């Protein structure tokens, strides 16, 4: 079985966001694999270790720097990579079209991705890819079992956990709690340098969503801070909760 994993390069989640000339300033920002996608890479590698998968291909659409995200995934244990060169301002539609074009040629049995990117928070691309390719999909999985061409997955659902079955090939997107991604070993990092990575240009399509402006949220300011004995502080906090935040106590 061939597994293809879509990874996006994103800002480190510790990054502080600033604007420059009305855009998000990426200067000096540490770039990582989107944490949700990293979990998908780990899931794919585990399938290979269990001999369920034969090959793990990593695909990333983005700037040249996305090569680092691909190399990281290869160092974790993926077999080869494809960098789809695309403008960083591509929207979810354009991203999905570009990735689907490459996936179609690769014809994998399973497509994995994170269910959301930690930067734009859109939760659209995996589902859109599935629709373009006419494949089943299921989102936000926390467990995956594959048998006889059918994936059985546990998913985070609204108000509980749902178990779904989908026939492969399918697009399946991960929640971060699915697994604990490994750190690449030194040997893995060395090997990754020799693994093949192909570079292709993204299919040119117009964005569907237009960004009008970026802004920073109003900075919250610190309010009252009590540094006193708990016996003094607790009644004040209770008073604030009841009279300012106006909460109701359950009797």
């Amino acid at each position, binding site marked *: 079985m061939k597994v293809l994993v879509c990874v996006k390069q994103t*800002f480190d989640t510790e*990054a502080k966001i600033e604007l420059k000339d009305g855009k998000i300033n990426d200067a000096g920002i540490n770039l990582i694999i989107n944490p949700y996608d990293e979990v998908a890479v780990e899931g794919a590698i585990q399938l290979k270790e269990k001999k369920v998968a034969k090959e793990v291909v990593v695909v990333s659409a983005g700037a040249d720097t996305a090569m680092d995200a691909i190399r990281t995934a290869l160092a974790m244990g993926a077999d080869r990579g494809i960098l789809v060169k695309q403008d960083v301002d591509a929207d979810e539609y354009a991203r999905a079209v570009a990735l689907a074009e490459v996936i179609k040629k690769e014809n994998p049995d399973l497509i994995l991705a994170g269910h959301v990117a930690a930067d734009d928070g859109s939760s659209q691309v995996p589902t859109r890819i599935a629709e373009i390719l006419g494949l089943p999909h299921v989102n936000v999985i926390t467990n995956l079992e594959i048998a006889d061409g059918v994936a059985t997955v546990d998913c985070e659902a609204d*108000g509980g956990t*749902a178990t779904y079955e*989908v026939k492969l090939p399918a697009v399946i997107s991960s929640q971060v709690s699915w697994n604990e991604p490994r750190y690449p070993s030194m040997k893995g990092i060395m090997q990754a340098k020799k693994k093949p990575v192909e570079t292709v240009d993204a299919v040119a399509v117009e964005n569907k*969503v237009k960004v009008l402006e970026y802004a920073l949220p109003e900075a919250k300011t610190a309010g009252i*801070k009590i540094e006193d004995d708990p016996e003094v502080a607790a009644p004040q*906090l209770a008073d604030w909760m009841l009279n300012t935040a106006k909460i*109701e106590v359950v009797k």
Partner: protein
Amino acid sequence: MAGTWVVVDQRDGNIRKVTFELISEAKKYGEVAAVLFGKGVEGLAPEFAKYGADKVYVCDDDLFASYNTGAYVAQLEAMIKEYSPNAVLFGHTVNGRDFAARLAQKLDAGLATDAIDFELSDGKGVFTRAIYAGKALAKVEVTGNPVLATIRAGVCEVVEADGAGEVIKPAIVATADDVYQVEKEFAPTVSARPELTEAEVVVSGGRGCKGPDGIKVVEELADLLGAAVGASRASVDSGWLGHELQVGQTGKVVNPNLYVACGISGAIQHLAGMSSSKYIAAINTDPEAPIFSVADFGVVGDLFKVIPLLIEELQK
């Protein structure tokens, strides 16, 4: 212009609050219809009229008994073609974002997800989205017929209003061939507490809880306030609370009326997930903890001492 549609988010007849929030908000733009999918759900229709729904499209069929993307999308696509709504809004829930994304691609359309504010006009919508988990905001424009978006729970007010609630039963065009995910099982979260993303009050516990005993203290406060329990990454990684309760950049973004951070230092990833709460209280031993920079009311102290006294005061 055939008005705004709000796709109802429900399971077993339990309607999520975000549905009513969206109906209330959409009412500002004229005609509002609720679009309801399910099996044996027609009796729910009057619920939407209470918040101003002029029409309720009821898609009642075995195929829709539980959410599945294929059949729901096939049905809604056909209805959009027949009735031409100006905009279709979904709650940004697990099902809502799944439904909206597949529908958008099927319609070859744009989609704004997880919007925290919006303005609709004919064939156009302007949406404010919190990106980088709220560290920045992007204002985006989506054009199309209809305009498609998912809206975060808790950002719009629920307002009671009179709606005609005229029930319309569209022809069911989805078939069993459209179904590609089969729900084998659903295990509801067994908790008397409200859900994290819908709660009016959230009480979260972090590293300062030091273990399950500290979490119990936090839970006791939460229950007194009728609150949801949240977690920082530290308490999830330590195994004290589940990931589904994690607040922050790789967890949930919450915006309750009151957020109480207990033993949470306030790493930037955590702040991103809760800074938009209306009121924030923090209890932490470290006076320099970043959580105090966003707290409206901070107590420098040990949660094991402060919370029991706080509970005592609140019970008076």
